[in-house]
């Protein structure tokens, strides 16, 4: 006990050092970047649960076009959302690189069917434009914003809006 209290006293003079702050950094938004057709999209990494191989999707009859079906995620059934009809992209057959990004946002879980998962990046918040003049309003509704990284335009998907469409 004595030793401990001594140690506490020793740290006394260093107190200021401990509280010295790092140089302020710009806040960033971590994104998972994926490809749909020839376009690049991103989704906030905090909403991504995992990425799984797109195999054995069970087709659901009489469902809207953007519902690709359901898959088995370790004993749970996960619905799969096809983002392409939502963003007006043509349908393509799945390839080797096709993945399902399992999304968890609040109580809602689904998987985004994407052509390829490209990278996980951090984008400075200041670089994100919320004005989406280049996109028609109908599609823009499902996006939170866009940003340019290495000359690529990345559209950030609004998970909540997409989930509302499903409901």
């Amino acid at each position: 006990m004595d030793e401990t209290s001594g140690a506490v006293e020793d740290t006394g003079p260093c107190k200021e050092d401990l509280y010295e702050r790092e140089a302020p950094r710009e806040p960033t938004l971590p994104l998972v970047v994926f490809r749909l057709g020839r376009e690049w999209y991103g989704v906030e990494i905090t909403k991504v649960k995992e990425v799984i191989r797109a195999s054995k999707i069970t087709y659901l009859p009489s469902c809207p076009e953007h519902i690709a079906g359901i898959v088995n995620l370790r004993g749970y059934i996960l619905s799969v959302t096809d983002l392409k009809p939502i963003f007006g992209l043509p349908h393509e057959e799945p390839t080797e690189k096709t993945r399902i990004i399992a999304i968890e946002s609040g109580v809602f879980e689904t998987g985004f069917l994407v052509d390829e998962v490209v990278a996980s990046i951090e984008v400075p918040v200041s670089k994100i434009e919320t004005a989406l003049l280049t996109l028609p309003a109908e599609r823009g509704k499902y996006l939170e914003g866009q940003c340019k990284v290495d000359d690529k335009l990345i559209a950030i998907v609004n998970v909540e809006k997409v989930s509302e469409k499903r409901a």
Partner: protein
Amino acid sequence: MSKNGEGDMSNNNLTLDDIAALIVQIEPTDLADWARVRRELNVIADSSPTSAQRPIAEAVKRIDQMTGGKASDPSGLLADIGAFIEEAINATEKSGGEETPFSDLEPEQAPALEPSAEAGGFKALPQEADPALLEEFINESRDLIAGAEAALLELETDPENAEPVNIVFRAFHTIKGTSGFLGLDHISKLAHGAESFLSRIRDKEIRCIGGYADLAFRSVDMLKDLIRIAQDALRGVPMAAPDGLNDLMVLLDEPEAAGISEDVCDEPGGVEEMPPRLGDILVAQGKAGRQEIEAAVADQTDQPVGMAILRSEIASLTEVGQALRKQRSMAGSEPVTEMSVRVRTDRLDRLIEMVGELVIGHSMVAQDETVNSGNYLELQRKVSHTDKIVRQVQDLSMSMRMVPLKATIRKIARLVRDLARRRETTINFVPIGEDTEIDRNMVDLINDPLVHLVRNAVDHGIEPPHEREKNGKPREGTLLLKAYHSGGNIVVEISDDGRGLDRNKIIEKAISKGLIQPGQNMSDTEIINLIFQPGFSTADKVTDISGRGVGLDVVRKAVETLRGRVDVSTELGKGCTFSVRLPLTMAITDGMLVKVGNQRYILPTVNIDMSFRPNAEVLSTIVGRGEIVVFNGKVLPIFRLHSLFNIKDAVEDPTRGLLIIIGEGNQRCALLVDELIGQQQVVAKPLGDGIGKVRGIAGGAILGDGRVGLILDPQGIAVLARQISDSGIPKEVVCWSGT
């Protein structure tokens, strides 16, 4: 977890009729349900005409009496409540709702309808309570109560000792303070009452022996109950006032008024169970010999046993005191035997689901080529060994959730008694197979259909006594409820010896309701099955027991959602038997795997009548759109699963595919699939988030190869097909056009 009818009761728009229907289902001891009924009545009273408010208020008063534990004759009270509600219904109907609600005019004049501090308005937990604080309070109180109990026991052997009194007093005082601060009014009130009572002991006004001691013990017990209720409420269990709280409050206020004194003989409440005798305890502890004690007691018959033993100096005061305490604790507390473990149902459900997956996973291993190649006999042996274990685990896990039907059947027995009394007949209710077990998740779900069938049998089936005598039957009707297991199903049969179903009456009714055309050729089974059509009711008059237009179709629908079926057999004048066949559990579905194009679906076996490959001559087409098949002389529409679900590369020629006959009565149809793959047990799961209900699909299941298979819903398919074909198929051919 959910009690029968809770869904109905949570709905705030109950009518008096609903309440009347509910009351007959509730046990007089079911405090939580009564509290809800009382609440609903108060709500109804607010919007009722003046003439109906008095009977409602009376009914509420009776409920309070019953739940307050004051009732000496609960069944009489129950009848009174029923009568008052009936009166209220009549009054409401008479006034036609034109009268302005009483409470709108003079709100202060309806005090009886305000939630009072009486049992019905009982509130164990304040709304804004901090759960952490409450938890702490509950634990603290437990300790204090335990201390108080010990002190009281000590006090009884040594009434002059001031120290135990102070311990008890302080315990109550602390609990009073904290509960008051937390807003636990009932606890604080009781603690206050007990405190004032104890202050009289402390001030040596009275001594803590005999009746007073019992009163002190009762206060402690009640406090324990209240704290337990508060704890339950914290966990979300519906709360109800413990029996006799109000009585106790009155007693504590003025014990002498109820004749309580220091005399032991005047024991309020009475002793239900004889505690072990003091002498026996001492003998058992080896403190004294039996003969000695018997001699001492015989010598001094005017003394209590303890005193007699003390005076004869057989045992010391401490020994007698300890024995007394032991006697008290043996009589007072319930035996603490931990024979079972309480497990949260969601965990149990999850376990059972996982075991289901294990079974499927294991069958994947067992069916693996490597295992079955015959080259690895050792491996094969090991796999078959695990197979046995897995099966045992499955059986065991399933049995964990099985409960006997006893509770449901007892409720029904009660219902039959009440219904019979209301119709002024006597019915002999014979339950058989009360111990038949069923998945606990299904118990609540099967209750409503059974109640409905029983009501029907009593109201429409069994004739009034005079009619029965005329027909040479015993005056007393018999209602037989038989539950048994049969091939992975549970079957509940409800048989009455009443008038039976009248074939001609059914036809007449069906024609008048437009369900069938006159002159239509139908088999007996088909005719009887008409009673399951919506809006069909053969009763000539609507009674208050049953026959409000919603009828057997509701029963059938409810049973079918449970993947079961209802069958009926009858003989005119002899009686009628409804048999409800349900799967033992909803967790596992017995299904037939069918292939359509590149898709596979699971069709619940219970829905399949039969399957066959048709010849070209039994097939025909009507007006180019509706396809039919003639099967056993019956014309059935054909639905192509591939076109309903828009599946490519499926077999389109019925003579190369397979027709599966599903559905019953008017919904019977033939479903075209490519082929049957085989039988499989699957664990039904909801489809993923956000998909909601898909027409024609009942749910999903993980198949042996890890893919998700869809479980078909035959009823949904029929609806879907009707939508797609719309008016395309002529009405004469589409059998369900009548609905």
